[in-house]
């Protein structure tokens, strides 16, 4: 059964190929259905392989399938093939599962877009790349997938590329990712140099013999790659701008899958991190800092997608914090549950945006709960889950992270706990501004004056908002194609915690992942009483956050004192990047073009030509044409020759 592993990335890739060739002919909505079915098939294959893996004994759950020898040069031998083990299958399952739901959702969301088939072929290509990333058996193939998802992210962010903001957001994402990718490449070079191979199994068997400084360097370089891909400090600004893309893209790529690739990588290199504690500490600190940063910024944002984007950055920080302290299982657990509720929140937001005719400013929403019940309830579930309200999945996963953080450093725990409070608060603010309180919009108002005015592709939907006829806003829930994924994800968000409850033997995930990361897992020795205390603490934090949000935002939408501009402007970090790095580069380029190019380079070339011409002009004057002048030259020559002879005779 494990032999069908190759089908997992193959199905979406086939979908991509078919849609590239025949997408336009298939059209709307058949292209979308084809893409969804392909990903569903991939999910089914993943389930089959999962079952096959389950069927094996715990110690034997590692299966390598080599497709062909990819690079074979001198000492470098890289094969194209997959490594099927609990970690990669966990990733594969949730990636394909969530992707299927989002593909389904997109059929409805992108209904009025004229580039409908193109969207789906990009999505399929993305899923295929992501699966290669998580299933690969060596660093280089992972990197191939890594680059693949990066480029698909670019394609999809800049999907409405005739919008300048979207085009430059795509560019920004690509550039930030690239910086991280440089780290990944350097790490690969170092790994090969130290261990002679890039295959995971070979490398991890050999890490014991590599010196700690090298391991620290490798770990930090790979972390740099993860920082770029998963939008951590300092390479995070691209994620907020990436909200220019269609909402399903934000849900799939920038919440559930691509950004988790960094976390996956950290867990994959657990053996290395285990032997390089300094690097691991750096990862934990950066993760905690990012979590706090993201949360504070999210508290002061108005755009619903930006709130969710910064929330993602914050939650990813949690995951890196977990990986950094050695709690890999907690990191994966949080990744899973986060995928569920964050995708849910994004899809819900998309539903609202669609209903409100592309308006994204929460300050212009309000009182939508009555009009959009399904969306409202699922969004509420998402809020409570991410806030960590028991017994939803977020409570269990975040609690796991917090407890492990405390085991390493109470300070990290404190930061993480404060962030948890803020998380519950800001997402509550988001929910309340959108669905309750005053209705800050009117039925008579036409759309279009939102901050994200439509592109050409969306112009059709501006004239024909989902479901509403004629002029004016009539928000309501979308069709089943869009609400079914919301419902499924909400259910997952509610009961998802069950996969790793901290009571033995209900800690399925921990036992499942044991063969992969068990040896490197942080061993915490908390008594049962301490564990209950932590749980209580988490619940209290969540409760406070919810209460504060309800207190302030239930009725009114104006609390400027709670939205300081420092947070609203994202701690001015992106502004600083733009001003100093981007501006500096632009100035340097301008200087080079204006001065260096024209004066120095052209000047040198032209100057040389001018010099040749000028010297020619001057030398030409020797040729007077007069015989007497030439005779004078002869005399001069005679003087020189005689002088030489005199000197020779003298010496």
């Amino acid at each position, binding site marked *: 059964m494990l032999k069908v592993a190759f089908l997992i990335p193959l199905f979406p890739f086939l979908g991509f190929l078919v849609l590239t060739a025949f997408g336009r002919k298939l059209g709307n909505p058949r292209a979308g259905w084809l893409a969804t079915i392909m990903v569903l098939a991939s999910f089914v294959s993943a389930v089959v392989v999962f079952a096959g893996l389950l069927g094996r004994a715990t110690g034997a759950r590692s299966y390598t399938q080599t497709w062909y020898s990819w690079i074979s040069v001198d000492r470098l031998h890289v094969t194209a093939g997959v490594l099927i083990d609990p970690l990669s299958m966990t990733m594969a399952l949730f990636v394909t599962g969530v992707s299927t739901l989002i593909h389904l959702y997109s059929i409805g969301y992108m209904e009025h877009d004229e580039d409908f088939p193109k969207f789906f072929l990009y999505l399929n290509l993305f899923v295929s790349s992501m699966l290669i990333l998580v299933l690969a058996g060596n660093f280089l193939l992972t990197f191939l997938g890594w680059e693949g998802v990066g480029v698909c992210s670019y394609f999809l962010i800049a999907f409405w590329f005739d919008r300048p903001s979207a085009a430059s957001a795509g560019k920004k994402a690509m550039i930030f990712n690239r910086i991280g990718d440089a780290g990944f490449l350097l790490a690969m070079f170092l790994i090969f140099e130290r261990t002679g191979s890039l295959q995971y199994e070979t490398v991890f068997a050999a890490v014991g013999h590599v010196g700690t400084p090298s391991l620290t360097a490798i770990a930090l370089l790979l972390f740099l790659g993860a920082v770029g891909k998963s939008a951590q400090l300092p390479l995070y600004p691209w994620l907020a701008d990436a909200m220019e893309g269609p909402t399903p893209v934000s849900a799939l790529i920038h919440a559930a899958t691509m950004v988790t690739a960094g976390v996956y990588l950290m867990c994959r290199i657990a053996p290395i991190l285990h032997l390089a504690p300094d690097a691991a500490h750096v990862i934990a600190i950066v993760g905690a800092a990012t979590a706090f940063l993201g949360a504070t910024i999210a508290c002061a944002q108005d755009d619903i997608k930006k709130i969710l984007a910064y929330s993602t950055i914050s939650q990813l920080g949690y995951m890196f914090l977990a990986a950094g302290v050695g709690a890999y299982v907690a990191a994966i657990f949080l990744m899973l549950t986060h995928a569920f509720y964050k995708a849910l929140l994004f899809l819900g937001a998309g539903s609202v945006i669609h209903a409100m005719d592309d308006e994204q400013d929460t300050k212009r929403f309000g009182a939508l709960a009555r009009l959009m019940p399904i969306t409202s309830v699922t969004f509420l579930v998402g809020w409570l889950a991410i806030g960590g309200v028991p017994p939803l999945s977020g409570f269990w996963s975040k609690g796991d992270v917090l407890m492990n953080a405390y085991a390493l450093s109470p300070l990290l725990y404190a930061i993480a706990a404060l962030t948890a409070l803020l998380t519950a608060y800001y997402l509550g603010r988001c929910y309340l501004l959108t669905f309750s309180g005053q209705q800050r919009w009117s039925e008579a108002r036409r759309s279009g004056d939102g901050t994200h005015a439509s592109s050409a592709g969306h112009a059709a939907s501006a004239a024909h908002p989902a479901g509403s006829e004629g002029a004016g806003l009539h928000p309501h829930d979308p069709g089943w194609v869009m609400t079914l994924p919301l419902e499924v994800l909400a259910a997952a968000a509610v009961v998802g915690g069950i996969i790793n409850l901290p009571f033995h033997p209900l800690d399925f995930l921990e036992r499942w992942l044991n063969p992969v990361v068990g040896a490197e897992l942080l061993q915490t020795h908390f008594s049962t009483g301490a564990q209950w205390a932590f749980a209580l603490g988490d619940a209290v934090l969540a409760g406070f956050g919810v209460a504060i949000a309800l207190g302030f935002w239930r009725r009114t939408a104006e609390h400027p004192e709670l939205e300081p501009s420092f947070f609203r402007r994202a701690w001015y970090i992106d502004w600083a990047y733009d001003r100093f790095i981007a501006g500096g580069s632009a100035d340097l380029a301008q200087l080079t073009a204006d001065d260096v190019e024209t004066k120095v380079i052209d000047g040198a070339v032209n100057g040389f030509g001018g010099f040749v011409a000028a010297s020619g002009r001057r030398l*030409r*004057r*020797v*040729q*007077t*044409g*007069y*015989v*007497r002048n030439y*005779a*004078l030259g002869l*005399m001069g020559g005679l003087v020189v020759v005689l002088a030489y002879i005199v000197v020779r005779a003298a010496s």
Partner: protein
Amino acid sequence: MTVSAAWYLTLAAAMFTIGAIGLLVRRNVLVMFMCVELMLNAANLTFVTFARELNDIGGQAVVFFVLVVAAAEVVVGLGIIVAIYRRRVGATADDIHVMKG
């Protein structure tokens, strides 16, 4: 005994120099030619001086031949000058500067 050779040679050098300067400074073709003859004479004087100093007849033989060749040269040179003057009267050495760059 006559004056030492150094004086003769210095005199010859001076005559040569004057002839050379004259060649460069004058524009009239015939005067230039005369300056050339002056230079030839300076050379002849040098040869004769060395013939005396080194007790060598070869020096005087050379002067003999120089004299003959100078005569032939003058004949041909003046023939050319005559031919040129047929075309343009009043030609000077400065009139040809076609090769001015």
